[in-house]
C-alpha cells in the first residue's frame, strides 16, 4: 500500500468521519479480500467493487441527507440491514462470478460432448462407406 493511500484515509477520517466510517465498515469484506488475495491481481476486488457501490448508494444518500454526521453513520451502521446488505453485496459479486464460471463449465462440457458425438458419427459413416476389405483386389488405377 502506498503512503498516499494512508494520507488520503487519514484526511478522510479527519474531514469526513461519517462517510469514512460508513464506507470503511461496509467495505470491510472488500478490504479483507484485498488483504488476503494471493494472486495480487486484485481482480476479485475490482469485480466486487461495483456490487459494493450498489449497496453503498442508499446509506450514503441517507448520510448525505443528515449532513454526513458521525452519529448518523453510527446509527446507520447499527441497523443490521445496512451492514448485512453491504457485506452481502460483496458476496453477491463472488456468487455471480462463480455462477458464470459454473455455467461456462457446463456449456463447455456440453459442447465437447456434442462434438464427440458428431465425430463418432462421422467416423462411423466413413467406416461404413470406406471399410477396408482384405479381399479387395489390387487395381492398376
Amino acid at each position, binding site marked *: 500500500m502506498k503512503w498516499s493511500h494512508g494520507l488520503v484515509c487519514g484526511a478522510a477520517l479527519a474531514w469526513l468521519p461519517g462517510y469514512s466510517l460508513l464506507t470503511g465498515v461496509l467495505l470491510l469484506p472488500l478490504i479483507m479480500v484485498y488483504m488476503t488475495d494471493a494472486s495480487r491481481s486484485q*481482480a476479485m476486488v*475490482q*469485480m*466486487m*467493487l*461495483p*456490487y459494493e*457501490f*450498489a*449497496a453503498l*448508494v*442508499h446509506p450514503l*444518500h441517507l448520510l448525505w441527507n443528515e449532513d454526513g454526521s458521525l452519529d448518523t453513520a453510527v446509527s446507520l451502521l447499527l441497523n443490521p440491514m445496512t451492514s448485512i446488505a453491504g457485506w452481502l453485496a460483496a458476496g*453477491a*459479486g463472488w456468487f*455471480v*462470478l462463480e455462477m*458464470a*464460471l459454473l455455467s*461456462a*463449465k457446463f456449456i*463447455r*462440457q456440453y459442447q*465437447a460432448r456434442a*462434438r*464427440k458425438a458428431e*465425430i*463418432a458419427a*462421422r*467416423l462411423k459413416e*466413413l*467406416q*461404413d*462407406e*470406406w*471399410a*477396408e*476389405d482384405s*479381399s*479387395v*483386389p489390387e*487395381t*492398376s*488405377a
Partner: protein
Amino acid sequence: MADADFAADVEHPEEESSTRITIEGRYVVETTHTLPELARCPAYVAHDTLSAHSGVVALAPPALYPARANAQKMARVRSPHLLTVHALDEASGSVWLVCDAPPGPALTEGSTWSEISVLERVIEPIAAVLHTYKEAGFTHRAIRPDNVFDPGGRFSVRLGPGLASPPAIFQPDRFESLSSVICVPAARGNGTTADDVFSLGALAAWLLGGCRPYGDEQPGAFTEERMARSSFAVLAGQLTLSPDIMSLLAAMLSDDPSARPAPRDLLNAADRKGFVARRQAAAAIPVQIGPVNVHTTRELAWYAARYQTEFTGLFRRGVVERWLSHELGLTQAASRLGVIAKDGAVSGDSSLSPLTLMEIIAVLDPSLPMFWDGLWFWPDAIGHLSAAAASGASTFPVDLGSALVAVGQGGKLARFAQLSVVEGQAMACQQVQMAIRQADVGKPADVIRLAYFLNPFQACLSSRCADKRFSVAWALLQWLNAGQNVDQPGVPGLLDPYMTAFLFACSHRNGLVDYFDDIAGKDASAWASDLRVLAKLQHLYVTGPLPGIARKLLPHLTSSLKQWRSRTTRTRRGEDLAGAAEAGDLVRMFELLNDAAAVAKDREAWLVARREARTLEIAQANLTQQSADVPPGMRAEMFRVAIAVGAVSAIASLCLEIAL
C-alpha cells in the same frame, strides 16, 4: 452292302425338323441316321432335294480329326474317279461335307485282283485323280483300301475324299512312304504328290499280294526293315509278278521321292513299259552307329536320331564326314557337315544341340521331315500336332508344347526350309511362322492356338463341346448362352483355354482382331477374363443380348466390384451390373467393371476420406484429453461478465435512489 448302307433315297418323314440340317438349301442331312464311316469320318444319311436319284452322304468331321485346312478349295476338284464333294458348309455352326455315296464296297472287303485289273481299274484311274489334284496344287493323302471303292464289273474304282480328315492321319504304315511313316500320324502333313504315288503303289502291291488284312500290324513294325532293305523289298519284294509290274511297283515304292513316277506317267500304266527304279546310293563299307551297320544317308539320318550319343561320337571324330566323302562321294554334304562340326567345336558343347542335330539330319537326307528333340514332323502338320497334343489323343516322346515353342523361335523353321528339298516346305514354314507370331505363342500352353490358326475348319477342342463340333464362333456363343452342359468341375471360369483360343482364332480369321491381347487381358479372376473376351466378341460379332452367359457370369463377378472402395459405388454398380446381366448386355457389364476413370476417382475419394478420418480421430483424442477446468481466458471473460453485472447493478441502484 455298302450300297444299302449309304442308300440316299431312304425317307424318314416322321423325323423332327430339329434332327435335320439343310446344307446350301439343297441337301438335307438326317442327323439321327448314321451310316458306316466313310474315309474314317462319321457319315449320315443325306438327300439331294433337287435330284432324287443322286446318292449322297453327309460327312461330319469330328473335332479331333477336322477337315483339311484347304478343304474348301479341294472340294472344287472334280474327277470321274473321285467321290465328288458337292458341298462344304458351316451354316449350321459345324462343318458338314456332302459327297457322293460310294459306288460299291471298299477294297478292304477283299477280292482277287489280276495284274491287268489293278493297272486298268486301280492305278490308272487313281493316277488320273492324282494328276488332277497335282494340277490344282493339292495332295490326296488318304489312298488306302478303306477309302477306295469298287463298283464291280470292269468299272474303275473310285477314290474316297481326302479332305475330310487331316492328311495321312489314318494311313496305315504300309501305305505311307518312309519320309512320312517315321512321323506319328498327326505329324505327317500335306506331303507331296510323290507320297500319293507311293500310297497308290502300296495299294497296288497290297491288292496283288492277296489283300491280306493289315489291321493288326503294329505302327512302326516295318520301319527298320524298310530302312534297311527299301520299302519296295519289304512291301512287294516277295510277290511273284511280271517284270513290268515289278519295275512299275519298284518305281512307285521307291524311297527316293524324286525317283517315283509322276501321276501323268501312270495314266497309261497298262501300256507303258520300262519303269526304272533308281536305287539310292549305298556305301560298300558301312559305318557302324550303335549296334547297326548303316549303308545309306537316309539310314544314317534315321539312326542318328535314335542313337544320338553314338552318332555324336562319330560326328565329333569326323567319321561321318569321311564316310560320306570317301564311300558315297557326297563331298558337298561332307563339307557342310564339316562347317556344322566346326561351329559345334567353337561352342564347346559335348552333346549336339537339337538345332545342330536337325541341321545334320537335313543335310544327310534333305527329303526327310524335320527332327527336333526326339520328334519327327513336317512343319505343315504343326496345327494337327498341337490339336492332338492338347486333346491328349496321342502320346508323344517329348513335351510337345515346349518342343513346338522352341521350334517356332529363332528361325529354326526357316533353317529347315532352307535345307529341305521337299517342295512347298518354304511356304509351309513361312505360314507356320506367321501363325506363331499372330497367335502370340510364347509358352507351351499357347500352342493350342496354332491348331485353330492353321486350320479354319478346326472345331473347338474343349472337352465340354467337342462332340458339338463347333467350327464358328457364333455357334459356341449360342451354345454357351443356352447354358447346356456349361459347367465343368475344375475349370475356373466359363471359358476354358480351348474355347478362348478358338474364339480368338475365329475373330482373327474374320478380321475382327489382330492380336490375342486385343480380346484377352489379365484380370483379377478367370470369370472377369471371360467377361472381357465375351464382351469383345458380343461387340465384334454384334450378337445381340446374351442373357444366358450374363446370368452365368454375374454371381462370379461380385468380387470384381471390390475394386471400388466406396460402398455406395459398389452397391450402385452392383445394381447396374445386375440390370445389364438381365438385359444380356455383356459390353455394358464389362464397361461397368473396367471403368478406369471411376476407379481413379474412387481412389481419390478414398484418400480424402482417409485423411478426414485421421483428422477426426486426432480431434476425438484431443477432446478426450481436454480438462474440464475453465481455461484462464474464459475465466477472465467470466470476471468481465461479473464486473459488467455489478456495474449494471450499481447503475440501477443509483437510478433507484435518485428516482425514489
